[in-house]
């Protein structure tokens, strides 16, 4: 059996969930493509190839056990994610650049 066992091992009635990220031929980063169930990482990779690269040519696939992903709480929007607009105090907007200093 594969040595890459996820946190939750497959049981008699349940295959763990995996999240799939695919980098396309022309892409620079892996993009989340979807999820699937598989008994272990080797099969997850093969299932991802079958499910998510059917129509577009991908060059790289990552599969991650869904249990390993920690996501931000969608309800915590306000305090976690606030627009930086109107927060001049966070940026060095009043700094004057010294003349003659290159590449600053």
């Amino acid at each position, binding site marked *: *059996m594969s040595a890459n066992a996820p946190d939750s091992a497959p049981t*008699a009635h349940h*295959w763990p969930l995996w999240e799939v990220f695919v980098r396309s031929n022309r892409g620079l980063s892996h993009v989340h493509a979807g999820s699937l*169930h598989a008994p272990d990482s080797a*099969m997850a990779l*093969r*299932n991802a190839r079958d*499910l998510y690269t*059917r129509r577009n040519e991908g060059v790289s696939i990552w599969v991650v056990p869904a249990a390993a992903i920690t996501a931000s709480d969608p309800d915590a929007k306000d305090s976690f994610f606030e627009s930086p607009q109107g927060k001049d105090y966070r940026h060095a907007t009043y700094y004057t650049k010294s003349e003659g200093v290159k590449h600053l």
Partner: protein
Amino acid sequence: MAARAGAAKPGEDVAQYALRLGDDALILAQRLGHWISRAPELEEDVALGNIALDQLGHARSFLTYAGGAWGKSEDDLAYFRREPQFRSAHLFEQPNGDFAATIARQFAAASYQFPLYRELAHSSDPMLAAIAAKAVKEVDYHLDHSTQWVLRLAGGTAESRRRMIAGLDLMWPFTGELFQDDELNHRLGAAGVLPSSLQGEFDRSTAEVFEAAELAVPASAMATGGGRHGRHSEYLGYLLAEMQVLAREYPTASW
């Protein structure tokens, strides 16, 4: 890749050979297609469906090419031939059984097709070489898929191991036929691949997997065969009836 209509017309021997390869793939595709909506897991539904589509693609290429010798289209050959005219080997028409039996059949089929297409890519016939060059990459994946499942089923629970062993015992007697040479193979020479030349590699590669899976190589006498000359098992009739009924009912229909 479908053979283009303007492709060179094959000689009778090459056409008969292409018919054998095409029929193998066509019958296997038909068997695998039955798993769609019935596979144990959604992911396997797609995996087996994909394998079936790949096989169907190979069948289309081979049958279109073969048909050129007789002025027949791939559809003429697929839908309007009867059992004795099919040239597929018995392995491919064996029933799906349970998932393990299907995997056993798939493992045998892919272990045969992979070296076959790899060698056929060097065929002196350019069309056969081209089809094989495209097909070998897909069959490489089919072999990997079935190998992974043989390992997991054999190494899983007592139940899965029992079924894997049963599936292999069921299918292995039909592998012998794949490596039998006849007059046609000898006449083809460099245009085809001599079936017996593939036996060594087949035995070695499958033995490796069996060892990793801690399975004994299925030791069973070879089944009678005869598929290459139109003598098939009782299953082909039912399979063809289902595959051909729509085309035969409405021969002039188009999608």
